[in-house]
């Protein structure tokens, strides 16, 4: 490997070195603030390291990793998201659990896994990244709290995620048996020689799709989502919902494009069906929830359904660049919004150790005694609902623009119907927050440091900024796709 190769992998190197340093630091001296500061520093350094890395791309570093603008962009996004999660976790962890320092180590490892996924162009690196990310997440879900709910969530996620990984792995094995390669590009070349109706390919793609569908929590592989979201500590739920989903989606998109899987119309059709039912089922089930975290879980199912539109539209090579651009914008907007929503749940739940304050009744009248937090929640909910002036709207606008290029009316109709249903459950939270009078005052007491408030203000500012002045990011995305 040459120097330029190392340079283009700078974010991964910084994260790995950071993880080692953190481990040593924890071994020598415990202290949550110290560890958290160091973690934030490492993550931000990794995010900044994409700038020097950008000078030596695009290049294929070993057959495993493809360093390009998209990989670097997502590395930066994941690192920043992890840094935000770190800061939000400080108060939350400070209130519960003993010796929570390893939590931050796990967070860095999980982020490293996500970044590897952003680079992955080979089944080996895909699996490596995915497992690194997921294994750290199992521990993160169960780590901070010793109560039943997080443990149940962690075990559920461990078992089901393990099964999904096994299914993906089996699919890879079948593909390897059929084509003799694990590289995405080479796979695409070899697939051309095999008739498209081949049974082995069919089984392989079925296994991989169901595994990926599980990781992205698409219907009908979604059943774990609400329980895990509900049980996991709020900051980790935010991380799981944004970073892990985005990482899986981006590697899926890369695999489809590089191996040109769009030639299999049956694949595209089944993705269309999954997208439509995810949008509808996710939104419909979210209507029934009284727990905000479960509601957000179902809403994330619907959002992943929206996102699949990108994959379907990419099948037309004329509009693939536009679709990729839209997909990246959507992921950025969704990451910021999800982090904000869960960040606020983290802040209102930090004090209570028995259970988190995530029932609708818990936010009763939040507008009147915590106007700042409530306005932040309002903005993130409006962004999830896709109301103008927020990042979520521009993302949805992108989806409309992308889906119209091929006149995918079924997808568009599901998008319209799904979004309209979504309004109800997002606004219900707003309604609870604005209630006054008739019931007892909520007894929320907050223990937040100013830093957490600054972070959430920054998140909200970024959501509004992406919604009001989207041009710079759009221009950048257009230039790299």
């Amino acid at each position, binding site marked *: 490997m040459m120097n330029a190769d190392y340079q283009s992998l700078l974010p991964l190197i910084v994260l790995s070195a950071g993880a080692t340093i953190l481990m040593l630091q924890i071994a020598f001296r415990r202290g949550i603030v110290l560890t958290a500061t160091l973690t934030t520093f490492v993550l931000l350094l990794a995010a900044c390291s994409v700038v020097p890395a950008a000078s030596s791309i695009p290049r294929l570093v070993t057959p495993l990793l493809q360093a390009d603008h998209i990989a670097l962009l997502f590395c930066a996004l994941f690192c920043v998201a992890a840094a935000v999660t770190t800061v939000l976790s400080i108060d939350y962890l400070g209130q519960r659990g003993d010796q929570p320092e390893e939590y931050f180590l796990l967070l860095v490892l999980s982020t490293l896994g996500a970044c590897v996924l952003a680079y992955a162009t080979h089944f080996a690196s895909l699996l490596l990244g995915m497992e690194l990310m997921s294994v750290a997440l199992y521990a993160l879900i169960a780590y901070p709290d010793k109560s039943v709910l997080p443990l149940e969530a962690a075990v559920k996620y461990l078992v089901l995620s393990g099964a999904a990984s096994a299914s993906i792995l089996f699919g890879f094995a079948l593909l390897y048996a059929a084509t003799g390669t694990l590289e995405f590009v080479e796979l695409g070349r070899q697939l051309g020689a095999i008739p498209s109706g081949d049974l082995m390919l069919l089984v392989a793609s079925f296994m991989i799709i169901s595994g990926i569908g599980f990781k992205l929590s698409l219907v009908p592989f979604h059943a774990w989502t609400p329980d895990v979201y509900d049980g996991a500590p709020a900051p980790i739920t935010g991380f799981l919902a944004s970073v892990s989903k985005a990482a899986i989606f981006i590697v899926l998109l890369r695999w489809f494009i590089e191996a040109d899987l769009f030639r299999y119309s049956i694949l595209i059709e089944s993705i269309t069906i999954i997208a439509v039912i995810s949008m509808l089922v996710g939104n419909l089930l979210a209507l029934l929830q009284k727990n905000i975290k479960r509601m957000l879980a179902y809403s994330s199912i619907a959002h992943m359904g929206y996102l699949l539109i990108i994959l379907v539209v990419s099948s037309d090579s004329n509009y693939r660049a536009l679709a990729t651009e839209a997909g990246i914008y959507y992921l950025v907007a969704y990451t910021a919004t999800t982090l904000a929503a869960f960040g606020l749940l983290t802040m209102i739940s930090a004090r209570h150790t028995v259970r988190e304050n995530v029932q609708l009744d818990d936010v009763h009248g939040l507008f009147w005694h915590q106007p700042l937090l409530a306005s932040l929640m309002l903005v993130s909910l409006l962004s999830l609902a896709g109301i103008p002036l927020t990042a979520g709207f521009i993302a949805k606008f992108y989806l409309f*623009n992308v889906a119209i290029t091929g006149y995918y009316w079924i997808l568009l109709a599901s998008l319209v119907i799904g979004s309209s249903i979504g309004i109800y459950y997002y606004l219900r939270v707003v309604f609870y927050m604005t209630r006054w009078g008739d019931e007892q005052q909520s007894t929320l007491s907050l223990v937040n440091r100013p830093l957490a408030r600054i972070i959430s203000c920054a998140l909200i500012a970024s959501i509004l900024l992406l919604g009001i002045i989207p041009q710079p990011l759009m221009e950048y995305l257009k230039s790299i796709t």
Partner: protein
Amino acid sequence: MSLLILIAFLIVGGLIALFSERINEQLPRWVSLAITILALGYIWLFCRQLPIESFSVIPNPTDGSSWLIHLRLEWIPRFGIAFELAMDGLSLLLVVLTLLLGIIAISSSWVEIKFKPGLFQANVLWSLAGVIGVFLAMDLFLFFLFWEVMLIPMYLLIAIWGHEDKAYAAMKFFIFTQFSGLLMLLSIVTIAWQAAIINGSYSFSYFDLLGVPFDSSLAFWMMLGFFIAFTVKLPSFPFHTWLPDAHTQAPTAGSVLLAGILLKTGAYGLLRFCIPLFPEASMEFAPIAMALGAAGVIYGAVLAFAQTDFKRLVAYSSVSHMGFVLLGLYAWNNLALQGAVMQMVAHGVSTAALFMMAGALQHRLHTRDMNQMGGLWHNAPRMGACAMFFAVASLGLPGLGNFVAEFLVLVGLFAVQPWFAVIATLGLIGAAVYSLWMIQKTFQGEPNNELVMADFGVREMGTMAAMMIALIWLGLYPQPVLDLAQPVLDSLRVFLVASPQLGGVS
């Protein structure tokens, strides 16, 4: 630039009202009153600067610079989206109406709102800013943005300060408009995409999209997307079901804003966007639209008669009156269009007054149930006289604004679709029945000594008197309003050349 300043002024004014609450509970209402009056004064100032002839020049609908005021700032060049505002006579008329009714709304909520008055007034000002944005935006993306954003303060007004069933009403209102709004967004994106294929570059500007020959089968569905969005807001039968709930549950100022101006954004959208963008498709669709309009006129009148809730009655009467607007717009000849514009203004004033009356009654009697009222005239003769005046205005008494509007619509409509004109005329009879019945149930009848209430004071009488003068003026000398809108109507009528269905007298 002045249009941007106008909108920004209202938004900043909202913030000032919000924070003025910390100084004094009474201050927000004064602040928002002052802001609205200053905004009106500002419009008057910059209209005075314009040469008087420019108000009679027919604006070129595909060239913003021929309009009274035009502002274009690049915003999202990636998709050819600009921050583009423009004003012609029609927009000017509606913006002035918006601000005037804003003053009425603020006045009607003067003593009603005890809880967080600062936030309340801020929401009132923000919804005014949103509506003005809708009337001025000439970029379809920007138009959609204002269209959606104006809902949020209105949602909060209903959800926070509404009456007993506010959650249901606010949610229904939002979901109806949001769903139809998404259909419109889909249509907007589709026509922009079609235009991008034809012109080679993305643009969402009204001036660029007007006159683009869309694929005809697609155009019909796109037109339908716009039509549904606008008729939900109008509201027209059968999309009206959100309206009685929202109006009934909203606080008085909310009802005044909803009925007075939010409904007009639907009519404005049809006139400005739906019909000119898709002339052929609209021509095909006109009979159905007119049938919906006629059905709305009758249906609204019949249901209004069946209500015992004062506010619900007024709400259903709005459905009936807005049916005339739909009929006038799709008749698409000069008289009918003049009538539709006139109806937008006159209905705004008369219904705002009736909702203010309903609010005043509820504030005093703590009920809206007309079965519990009766003989109120005895105690409150000034209120009775005002209610009588606006009831007969609403039923279309000659000499008042609503009569001019409905008469013009019916005359114009008769030239195109005589049978629809006949049906709509029946609606006028219905209006007489429910309006007079409303007065009989509330103010007339045996005086009831248990119902003692204070009569209108100076503030309320002043507001009512202003609206009476406006209606009388509109009824006796409507020409200035018609003159202001005429050049715009002329310019828009170019898009739809006279046809057997849509032509007729001019």
